[in-house]
């Protein structure tokens, strides 16, 4: 195997593989260094929404970035299908956030107002629908549903198959993928990066992209960058397969292309993904069942927890190092939603050696020096 590349991507999750796929697609010589199966990998533990509504409160640029991703998803899905034969089952016919009771609906309306009042935010046509309108689109809702918010740009995808398709596609583009290859050290020397692997071996590259999720916290400072993270844990409950009954994804309930129903989406400040908090699962299952009483008859076949990659303020971080030019850091919570941007936008910018500040200026980690506001980049 070779030891020198145009670009090394550290991290082979959804974000790293989307960037590496995008780089391979435009003819770069790329190597992906990844951990093994024991990695706490959000790429295998996520809710698989391609989600727009309510994103960007506190950072209008994130709204535009998310809208662009939603609009580019059909192109990514189609290119992956053509290249790999894998259908990632992208569906965008609008998504809901349902409110149980009038008070929750009122809270949702207030959030919508705050989003609309933000200067510079693109309009993504999120609207509040009353119970009767919701019932026309989601015929199985229960009596407690007071209404909800709807956004026509929301959708979902088979995220595990997307992950597989990106890796399959990467290989077809000639990208070298090396699992069980965590990076312990990165040195920058005369315009070249040297990355030390688990057995002391070195891989050299002209550029390096840090896409290692929460591990970016320790890798970024090696090349003069920073990635302040505040990861959280989420839990999911999965039912047996059932005939399609839920035509739109919800922020907390969705039916997959193969028929299972996924119920989320909790947030805890803990990082052990090997145990479950059953009281949280029961609250999630209870709320889902009040939204759709028929769910109560289905058997639960799995439940699991996963660790989110979460920049401190919830918004993505994209930045090139000033002291080690050619080193880039990329991390975000919404690796599924933003995958097309990582493939079609970030990758060409990395190849060209400069991030477009018009588009990505807001996502610099320098914002953490001036503001300690913890807003939220999700739902």
């Amino acid at each position, binding site marked *: 195997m070779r030891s020198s590349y145009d670009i090394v991507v550290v991290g082979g999750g959804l974000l790293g593989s989307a960037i590496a796929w995008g780089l391979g697609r435009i003819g770069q010589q790329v190597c992906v260094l990844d951990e093994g199966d024991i990695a706490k990998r959000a790429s295998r533990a996520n809710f698989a929404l391609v989600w727009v509504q309510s994103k960007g409160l506190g950072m209008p640029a994130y709204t535009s970035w998310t809208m662009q991703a939603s609009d580019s998803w059909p192109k990514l899905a189609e290119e992956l299908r053509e290249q790999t034969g894998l259908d990632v089952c992208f569906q965008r016919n609008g998504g809901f956030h349902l409110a149980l009771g009038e008070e929750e609906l009122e809270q949702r309306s207030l959030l919508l107002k705050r989003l609309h009042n933000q200067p510079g935010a693109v309009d993504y046509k999120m609207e509040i629908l009353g119970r009767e309108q919701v019932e026309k689109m989601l015929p*199985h809702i229960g009596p407690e549903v007071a209404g909800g918010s709807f956004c026509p740009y929301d959708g979902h995808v088979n995220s595990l198959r997307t992950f597989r398709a990106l890796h399959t596609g990467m290989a077809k583009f000639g990208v070298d993928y090396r699992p069980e290859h965590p990076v312990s050290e990165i040195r920058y020397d005369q315009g070249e990066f040297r990355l030390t692997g688990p057995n002391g071996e070195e891989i050299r590259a002209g550029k390096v992209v840090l896409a290692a999720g929460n591990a970016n916290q320790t890798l970024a400072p090696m090349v003069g960058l920073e990635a302040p993270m505040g990861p959280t844990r989420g839990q999911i409950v999965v039912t*047996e*397969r*059932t*005939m399609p*009954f839920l035509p739109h994804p919800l922020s907390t309930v969705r039916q997959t292309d*193969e*028929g299972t129903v996924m119920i989320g989406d909790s947030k805890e400040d803990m990082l052990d993904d090997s145990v479950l908090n059953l009281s949280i699962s029961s609250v999630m299952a209870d709320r889902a069942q009040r939204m759709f009483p*028929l*769910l109560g*008859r*289905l*058997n639960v076949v799995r439940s699991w927890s996963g660790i989110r990659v979460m920049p401190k303020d919830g918004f993505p971080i994209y930045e090139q190092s000033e002291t080690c030019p050619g080193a880039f850091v990329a991390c975000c919570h919404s690796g599924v939603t933003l995958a097309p941007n990582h493939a079609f936008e970030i990758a060409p910018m990395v190849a060209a050696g400069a991030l477009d500040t018009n588009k990505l200026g807001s996502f610099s980690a320098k914002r953490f020096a001036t503001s300690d506001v913890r807003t939220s980049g999700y739902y």
Partner: protein
Amino acid sequence: MFKRFDGDTRKPVEIFVDGRPVVAREGDTVSAALLASGLDVRRKTAVSGAPRLPYCMMGVCFDCLVTVDGMGNRQGCLIPVRPGMQIEIQKGKREIGR
């Protein structure tokens, strides 16, 4: 394919398979009764629609999934027959609310 042996003297139990009367024996599981019925009792799987029959007969493989008295995705190999039981061969995924 399957044939009951002549020394089986257990009492007959009438059940219904997709509406057709079938004589099982007391103590049969739903799956055993279906296999012995002589009918085409192949279900279709939830994703690809491939045909399946009960296989492990001990609760492990889930290839015996069947609708029993209006409830889908029951493991036929774990449920004893009862007189008048309504069995439906499940074609594909369980229906929501059944």
